[in-house]
């Protein structure tokens, strides 16, 4: 029944070896990343070409668009997506330039596969909810939401910057009042790749508790209007066409990416906090028209990291370690998301 001395010694040797490896990884700052599914070479090529075409549309290379528009229309199989059409178009770009008009008019936003637009994540905008006169909610113990969110955001910033692989922009770094519009503007001006707003929930039913994450809902992003107008200025295409294209490529992807980000962050929050707060509820991922999400131009989420109206969670929120776990969970989710984006970029980039 008891392990023999030899077995124990063997087990100890293996454990020490694994421990050393773990510490070597810590020294080297290596981050465990989930293995991305291996992509076939031809898919990489297709992805790269799709990326090229999509990028061209985004930056408004009117010269290429015009060239393409002048070319005869290829026959597109029924049900083919913009991505696959774009890929095929790209493959025969020199021999048979495809007509952008055909692509433009016939594609809907929902048909774009976000995987063809690998959005690398380098800069992260962190938004600590409330601040200044806007206290947000208050826990039964008297802790204010604005203080909790700032503490979590500061911890999260440290976690993200520790490996030097992310830049962090804070919409507020102290107890100051910042309007929602200004928060989005800060994120937008900084060129952040994702936006994460940290909030604490308050639910009428005091027994309710848990974590939930919101992402950008349906929107009419003014950025798209401006960009479309600018890029379409000399192209000869109707504004509506360009708008449709940009909506399809950008807004759809932004929403998809926001949902994807919300999902990984929600998973990380629930999983990580569940280890210190076994009763925590997974309240799920939801979309909602929060102004701060609507006004940002990058994948954006709003995380309700716990529930101040619930006595147990309020007590936990008062503890630094719990707030550190929240930050760690958010950082974990962001790293998974960034890692997936990098994987897609590498795959698409060949």
């Amino acid at each position, binding site marked *: 029944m008891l392990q023999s001395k030899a077995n124990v010694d063997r*087990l100890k040797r293996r454990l*020490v070896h694994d*421990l050393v490896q773990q510490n070597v990884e*810590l020294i080297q700052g290596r981050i465990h990343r989930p293995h991305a599914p291996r992509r076939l070479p031809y898919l990489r090529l297709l992805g790269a070409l799709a990326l090229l075409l999509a990028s061209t549309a985004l930056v408004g290379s009117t010269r290429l668009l015009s060239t393409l528009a002048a070319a005869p229309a290829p026959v597109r199989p029924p049900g083919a997506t913009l991505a696959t059409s774009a890929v095929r178009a790209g493959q025969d770009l020199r021999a048979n330039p495809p007509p952008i008009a055909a692509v433009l008019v016939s594609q809907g936003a929902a048909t774009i596969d976000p995987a063809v637009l690998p959005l690398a994540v380098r800069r992260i905008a962190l938004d600590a909810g409330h601040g200044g006169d806007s206290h947000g909610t208050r826990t039964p113990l008297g802790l204010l939401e604005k203080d909790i969110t700032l503490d979590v955001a500061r911890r999260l910033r440290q*976690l993200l910057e*520790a490996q030097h692989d992310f830049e962090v922009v804070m919409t507020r770094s102290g107890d100051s009042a910042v309007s929602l519009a200004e928060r989005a503007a800060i994120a937008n001006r900084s060129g952040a790749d994702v936006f994460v707003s940290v909030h604490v929930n308050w639910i009428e039913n005091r027994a309710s508790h848990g974590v939930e994450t919101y992402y950008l809902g349906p929107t009419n992003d003014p950025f798209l209007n401006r960009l479309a107008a600018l890029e379409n200025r000399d192209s000869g295409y109707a504004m509506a066409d360009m708008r449709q294209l940009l909506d399809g490529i950008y807004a759809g992807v932004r929403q998809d990416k926001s949902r994807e980000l919300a999902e990984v962050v929600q998973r990380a929050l629930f999983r990580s906090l569940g*280890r*210190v707060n076994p009763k925590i509820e997974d309240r799920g991922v939801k979309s909602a028209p929060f102004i701060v999400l609507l006004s940002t131009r990058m994948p954006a989420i709003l995380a309700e990291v716990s529930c101040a109206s619930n006595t147990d969670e309020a007590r936990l929120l008062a503890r630094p*370690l719990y707030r550190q776990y929240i930050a760690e969970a958010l950082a974990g989710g962001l790293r998974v998301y960034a890692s997936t984006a990098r994987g897609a970029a590498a795959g698409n980039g060949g």
Partner: protein
Amino acid sequence: MTESKPVLHVGIDLGTSRSSISASTGQRHVVESYVGWPLDMVARKVLKKPVLIGHEALENRSMLDLHRPLEEGLIKDGSEKDEAAVRELLWHLLSLVGVARETRNGMKVRAVVGVPAEALRVNKQNVRKAMQDAVDNLMIVSEPFAVAYGLEALLHSLIIDLGAGTTDFCVMNGRLPAEEDQRTLTQAGDWVDEQLSRLTRERFPEARFSIHMVRAWKEESSFVGNTRTPVVVTVPVNGKPTQIDITQEMRQACEGLLPPIVESMLDLLSRVQPEYQERVRNNIIVSGGTGLIRGLGPRLEQELAAVGGGKVKVVKDPVFVGSDGGLSIALDAPDADWEKLTS
């Protein structure tokens, strides 16, 4: 020919309340995890030291800028003073086993430092940063793993490490604990202190006492279940030393720990592979200073009865069990592996 320095191996348990060190020379020391700097020139003249550590710092706290640099087992973030306090604490521990600050006495120092089970990457990096000048080679390990290693409870066991800042759970199944094998609760010794302080203040609003006094009462008289000896402490009431009976408050504060601990214990046990559950249930080890609450082991065994019974062993020497485990790891690691871990 290369000069070979003598090697000193140490295991360090960096705790919220107490920190301990075990050295390969056989020396073992424990200090209260307090660091204080004299508040002004007068204090400096009186104390005659630039920095005070442990009990000495606590005793002279009125003259000190006092820091308890580890909150809930983690190095506090964002405070240079707390980072400096951790460094002072580590240097102090090393000095207790004969390592001189500047020269290290010409020795090569190899340290294994235990941190809370789920200590976060940044905090592990902070520990590494704080120790980089103090030792030659450094390994960081989860505290309950160090305990399990020291007790050779590496297979089919559950370690419950009740510290001051956190209660760490770790199922040992013959490999390095993964996320799903570990859990951390913020209900631990400090939490009991807070509850005891609140309850006592509610019942005796005129009594004057500090959290340090409450901590001392708990360490002296904590219990769950029944006790034949009432818990009576002396506190100033309206300036007059007065004895008050806090037996009920002590019981209530200590028993408040039970529901989250029992819930986590049963939950972790339920996740063990079915064929090994009984073995793990019969090999539960409670370590850490807060694990010395009287009656805790039998009470946990009562709770295990609902799932088929089990055995709980409370470590008799909780102060050094973590640092001793760290020292065992330090001594077992081959030289070649240590060389990969230059601090």
